[in-house]
């Protein structure tokens, strides 16, 4: 499209960004508030960060969420990449249409439905085959891998479609077996998309309240579950402090990944969530 941004366009865009960022900015400002009131300024203080670091329950839940998100993202990248290869490179096979729906439906499925249905599956499985024995970290992990796989598949398959197929063809013509073509040719080219996909999956897992609430068990409380129960009791500057830390980490993570991706491929950049 064209090259000029009119002043009207600039104004609109600015308003849009104010709408997107002002609430987050306010959250950050009030995390440094001396007063317990979240909406009245009472002087500068970092005491809520101190309280946050002394909150054993919060820290425990954060560690649990981190472990789950790390494992879920890593597994989802493997499964999601396989799924994208199947979608983009494998041509037609019996049941491909069904496979395609199972990849796209989780992207929009309301979380309450996914959560309830997975819980009922785990209960039914425990009843019939005795596995998984209880609900906890493992069941949350399985649930997260499942929906994260779909998101990774979207990110990775859009990169697979864009990449130059002739490189793969050349490697094949020179006699490389399919696995070697994949690991030596395809994988290095789609690597930035795998990083984006991993980060997206990691954030989605870290962020999930609804599905985890359904499939968790006693002793496996994740960070969003702790945040949710404390928010229900009223606003707390401690949550603002936590929000500030999350915003800081997310921004650094995303910007680093973005910068790396730009460095790797100078042409078109595949943004995280680019196609979802």
């Amino acid at each position, binding site marked *: 499209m064209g090259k000029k941004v009119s002043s009207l366009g600039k104004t609109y865009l600015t308003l849009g960004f104010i709408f997107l960022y002002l609430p987050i900015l306010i959250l950050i400002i009030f995390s440094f508030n001396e007063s317990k009131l979240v909406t009245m300024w009472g002087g500068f203080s970092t005491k809520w960060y101190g309280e946050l670091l002394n909150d054993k329950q919060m820290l425990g839940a954060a560690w649990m969420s981190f472990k789950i998100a790390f494992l879920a993202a890593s597994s989802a990248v493997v499964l999601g990449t396989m799924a994208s290869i199947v979608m983009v490179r494998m041509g037609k*096979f019996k049941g491909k249409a069904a496979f395609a729906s199972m990849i796209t439906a989780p*992207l929009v499925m309301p*979380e309450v439905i996914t959560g309830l249905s997975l819980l*009922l599956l785990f209960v039914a499985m425990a009843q019939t085959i005795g596995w998984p024995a209880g609900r906890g970290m493992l069941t949350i992990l399985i649930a997260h891998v499942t929906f994260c796989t779909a998101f990774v598949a979207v990110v990775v*398959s*859009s990169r697979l479609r864009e990449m130059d197929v002739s490189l793969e063809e050349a490697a094949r013509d020179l006699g490389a077996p399919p696995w070697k073509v994949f690991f030596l040719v395809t994988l290095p080219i789609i690597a930035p998309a795998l990083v984006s996909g991993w980060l997206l999956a990691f954030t989605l897992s*870290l962020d999930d309240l609804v599905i985890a*609430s359904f499939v968790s068990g006693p002793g496996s409380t994740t960070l969003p579950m702790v*945040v949710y129960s404390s928010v229900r009791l009223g606003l707390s500057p401690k949550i603002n402090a936590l929000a500030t830390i999350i915003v800081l980490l997310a921004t650094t993570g995303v910007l680093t990944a973005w910068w790396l991706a730009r460095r790797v491929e100078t042409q078109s950049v595949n943004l995280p969530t680019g*196609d979802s």
Partner: protein
Amino acid sequence: MSWGRKSVISVPYLWLTLFFLAPFVIVFKISFSEMDYAIPPYTDLFTWADEQLTLTLNLGNYAYLFTDDLYIRAYLSSIRIAAIATIICLFVAYPIAYVIARAPSATRNALLMLVILPSWTSFLIRIYAWVGILKNNGLINNFLMWLGIIDQPIAMLNTEFAVYVGIVYAYLPFMVLPLYTNLMKLDNSLLEAASDLGAPPWKVFLTVTLPLSKAGMIAGSMLVFIPSVGEFIIPDMLGGAETLMIGKVLWQEFFNNRDWPVASAVAIVMLLLLLLPITLFHRYQARELEN
């Protein structure tokens, strides 16, 4: 089919069949059982007694959904709220996507990044931010009272208005992205041809750009509408007692009433209502995957 090819297909295929498809079959099954004070808290559909296998299908849960008007009202108001929020989102997002798509390529990626960045921070916390802004002694009311425009706080939190704000705020990037992707693919020569033939800019927009971005509008709308219908966090934190939404009803049915069979029936009916939009979204997504 080679062994390698088969195994690459079967691993994700089996995973999704077991953990995405099979659960729906089980929800469907349990929606026909009865609540029971046992572990698990529902009756078996099949019972074996006197060398007889009996299948008991209890349609009571579905009958209950249609007799107690709470559920019908919740379904209808969820669809209404999600639809209105989607339309607002479309109107807010379209100009953003349009301006970004027209920006010089150097800034385009950075602008798009800025749109996406907020969605990388916690959904729950972004909704929580609005509680402090909208409540009676919150920032907007304090500000307006300080200016002297109002002397009584305007009730905004715990209203349907707050739910709209929450949905538009949280789902805006999901509307911008497909619109942007679509507008980027737009063939510039068509726009030039239209304006060379003397069409004023607004006419070029209405007769060329808008119809050609239909696919993006549909994809974005479905990405916002479908999850919003079943949204739990937004109506729970920003909505009031009179803001009925089915996701919250399902949650309460499950966690507060512990009635798993009714919760399952609620989920199945919701799924049936969403089948058409999901198919529409899938068709768009499949077309994207093909080319």
